[in-house]
């Protein structure tokens, strides 16, 4: 019976496509000839500061918005209606893994047991330490790693932490003079930036014709200066680096270490583990693979896993079992801290709940479906996908300006893919639908791609027309930076 009902719904969705209805329309709030005014335009008050403190310590006055609770509520409700999230529709941004965020994890995060101060004694935070321990052990298993720190507060922070750990390891072995980190040209921008922040020279590695690491180029690049090779696998084209064992051997023989960028881990659950491929250190993006909400840009969390040799260098504190409970400890050669406390605790809680909810079978099904969805969507779109076989994401090549394609897709009620990157593909449309999009939504997405592919280039350049704002002149915004309402007053 449920099957029958399901088919009817699908038909309705298909009919909607025929009529050209966008599945999601953006709200547009006007107030006179303006959008929702800024807080300070709605109501502002200047108060004279009166304090028990002496005058020379305090400010004379403070000017800030002053709204009643009903008006605060309306302001942010209106703003939310001018915003598109995964709860609104698909966000197939490649490498971003924007999947549905289960509602129940917010309730778990709201549990009073989360309201614990980090400076309590170990004895008084056993609940927290228990969860940290369980999650770190689970991630170690998923990554095929020997030890995990949960501390880094984002993926890029995880990269920086992993590089610092690798550096400390090399220094402890008398190899501190290793000065280079090798990064493939198609890698995430954070890889380059994190390596540079840790003081390394970045050596860019070209791809070969099939879109993978050029092994001969790696052989030429790897040597006594090599500290680390950073790699994401599958890579940003969605391709598995088939030569990974050979790549690992080359780097290891040169005395370097292998770093796994976990941004694309959503394609490997139950299928392969970075540790088994020869990676020595990796980060996990809990806000990607384990579905914690991106919150408009963060918070995320970027735990790192390492092999046993690197474990003594992990950040402090680590958590271990002790006397039927848990305790914190400082690893012997710890690099110290990368966050004042334990990063974004609530992200850890939500990720742990998500993993527990799925179990082995569910986690493997995530990756299988993510890969199936990407392959299905790619089959349904008319743009060429030059590289394959791809996994959870693919990079299509637009015939027109990819940025224009993206803007035109907005008018079809969906979020477009990542555009113009990686540069190895002309006018790239880097697309990752994730496992949580239904067939009907994938068909919507394909319809949006194909409608745009059939649109006149002039009309593409004029898009979007159905969104909260029309196309925004980004170059002008950068030339004439106005970054607060104070700057608006000046003009």
């Amino acid at each position, binding site marked *: 019976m449920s099957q029958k009902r399901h088919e009817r719904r699908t038909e309705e969705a298909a009919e909607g496509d025929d009529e050209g209805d966008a599945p999601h329309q953006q709200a547009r709030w006007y107030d006179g000839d303006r959008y929702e005014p800024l807080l300070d335009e709605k109501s502002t008050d200047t108060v004279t500061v009166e304090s028990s403190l002496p005058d020379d310590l305090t400010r004379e006055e403070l000017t800030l918005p002053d709204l009643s609770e009903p008006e605060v509520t309306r302001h942010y409700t209106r703003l939310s209606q001018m915003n598109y999230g995964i709860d609104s529709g698909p966000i197939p941004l490649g490498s971003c893994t924007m999947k549905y965020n289960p509602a129940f994890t917010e309730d778990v995060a709201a549990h009073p047991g989360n309201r614990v101060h980090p400076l309590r004694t170990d004895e008084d935070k056993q609940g927290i330490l228990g969860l940290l321990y369980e999650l770190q052990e689970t991630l170690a298993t998923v990554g095929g790693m020997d030890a995990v720190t949960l501390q880094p507060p984002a993926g890029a922070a995880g990269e920086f932490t992993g590089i610092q750990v690798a550096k400390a390891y090399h220094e402890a072995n008398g190899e501190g003079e290793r000065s280079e980190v090798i990064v493939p040209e198609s890698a995430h921008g954070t890889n380059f930036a994190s390596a540079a922040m840790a003081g390394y020279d970045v050596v860019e590695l070209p791809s070969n014709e099939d879109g993978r690491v050029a092994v001969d180029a790696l052989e030429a690049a790897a040597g006594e200066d090599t500290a680390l090779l950073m790699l994401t696998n599958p890579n940003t084209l969605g391709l598995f680096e088939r030569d990974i064992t050979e790549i690992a051997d080359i780097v290891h023989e040169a005395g370097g270490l292998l770093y796994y960028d976990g941004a694309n881990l959503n394609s490997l659950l139950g299928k392969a583990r970075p540790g088994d491929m020869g990676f020595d250190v990796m980060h996990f993006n809990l806000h990607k693979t384990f579905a914690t909400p991106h919150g408009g840009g963060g918070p995320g969390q970027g735990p790192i896993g390492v092999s046993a040799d690197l474990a003594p260098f992990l950040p402090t504190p680590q958590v271990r079992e002790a006397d039927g409970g848990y305790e914190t400890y400082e690893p012997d050669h710890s690099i110290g801290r990368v966050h004042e406390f334990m990063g974004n605790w609530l992200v850890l809680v939500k990720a742990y709940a998500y993993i527990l909810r799925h179990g082995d079978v569910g986690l493997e099904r995530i990756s299988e479906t993510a890969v199936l969805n990407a392959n299905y969507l790619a089959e349904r779109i008319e743009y060429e996908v030059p590289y394959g076989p791809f996994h959870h994401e693919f990079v299509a090549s637009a015939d027109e300006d990819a940025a224009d394609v993206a803007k035109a897709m907005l008018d079809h009620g969906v979020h477009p893919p990542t555009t113009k990157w990686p540069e190895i593909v002309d006018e790239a449309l880097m697309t990752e639908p994730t496992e949580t999009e239904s067939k009907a939504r994938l068909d919507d997405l394909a319809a949006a791609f194909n409608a745009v592919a059939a649109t006149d280039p002039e009309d593409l350049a004029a898009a979007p027309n159905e969104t909260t704002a029309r196309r925004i002149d980004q170059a002008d915004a950068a030339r004439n930076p106005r970054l607060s309402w104070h*700057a608006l007053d000046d003009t």
Partner: protein
Amino acid sequence: MPYVTHSEAERSEMLDTVGVSDPDALFDIPDSVRFDGDYGIEAHSERETRAAVEGLLDESPDLTEFLGGGHYDHYVPSVVDHLSLRGEFLTSYTQYQPEITQGFLQALFEFQSLVVELTGLGVANCSVYDRATALGEAVLLADRVRATDGDTVLIPADLPDRVRSVLDNYTDGPEITVETYPTSGGTVDVDGLADQIGADTSLVYAATPNARGVLEPDLAAVGDLADDNDALFCVGSDAVALALLESPAAYGADVVVGDAGVLGLPTTYGMGLGLFACREDFLRQVPGRLVGAGEDDAGNRAYTLTLQTREQHIRRERATSNICTNQAWLALRAAIHAAWLGPDGLVDLAEECVTGIAAACERIDALDGFTAPVYDGHHFREALIDTAAPAADVVDHCRHAGLAVRAVEDAGEERLAVCVTDTNQESVDDLVDALAGYGGGA
């Protein structure tokens, strides 16, 4: 599976379209690195999962905390949860497509504006991770903008070890030297700083309130010293304290860092919201995301991420920072909290942080065996207390009464640290009662 919605019929149809009979055939992974084991994790229903995780969390006892030390608790009004948890906000991505994310961009623009108002500086970004990483970014900024003879950063002797440790990691790559300057009487020793500062100093850092909870009485003198030596002056504070205190720009701050999570974020095991503001002429050296106002094709005001050529996804190894994911959702929450409080409410909350700890210290000081506070000067939220009995014993004694306080090492002494805010103020009676029973037999 809970969030995968394909029916069997749809799945078959999709597999047919793709041309395989099993999704496993889509994985182009050599057998040698295939994982054929199990993770050993059982699946749970939603109800079971909640029971399991919440059961684990319940292992921590319910205590009244007077902890502080960099993570502070204020009452967060219900409206913050209700609005920030709206799915359009919570489940959105970084605003790479500004035409469909105007709401979040405007909220972040408003957050930046609040920080500009509180700091008096020209530019604020829309967050870094926490106050420690914000200080790390400030030091890296100084390294880029200051052509000094050397790369020495001066930090106060009372900077918490946890923050110092983060700073050490940030300064390791560019080989910046971090040195401490002395404090005396619980605050910056300006003469000691004057002896130490020199042509090789790129940045001087001071916090108010400082790590001892004391409001620094003369940061203008620190600013002058920094200025005289062509070093940047970086002030550490937080979004509540700044509502009451003199604007840092007014006494010469070039950069302000700290925690804005004192708004919108209750105690959550140390989660933070890194605040970062600086002078406008450093605009192109700012780390992290910036939201700017501009215009759309229809001539209406619109918001967008801007000056992205500073960032890692464009500039790669020459980016101003590696930060990508930040704390945007917490910035939204802080802004909602601030808007709800209004200037009056925010100043009142800050004033409570002054009067609350002062009143608690007065009562504790009146007890036998306690000197509260140790240091003269005005305090904010927290203070150090001398105890006749060993501080660790006092901590244990309070713990038996269900109260969490800390013992800290300060100036070679074991001292008690107490933090009082609006959320534990009504339990100060209990704390005073507990301490009254433990004057110690000194």
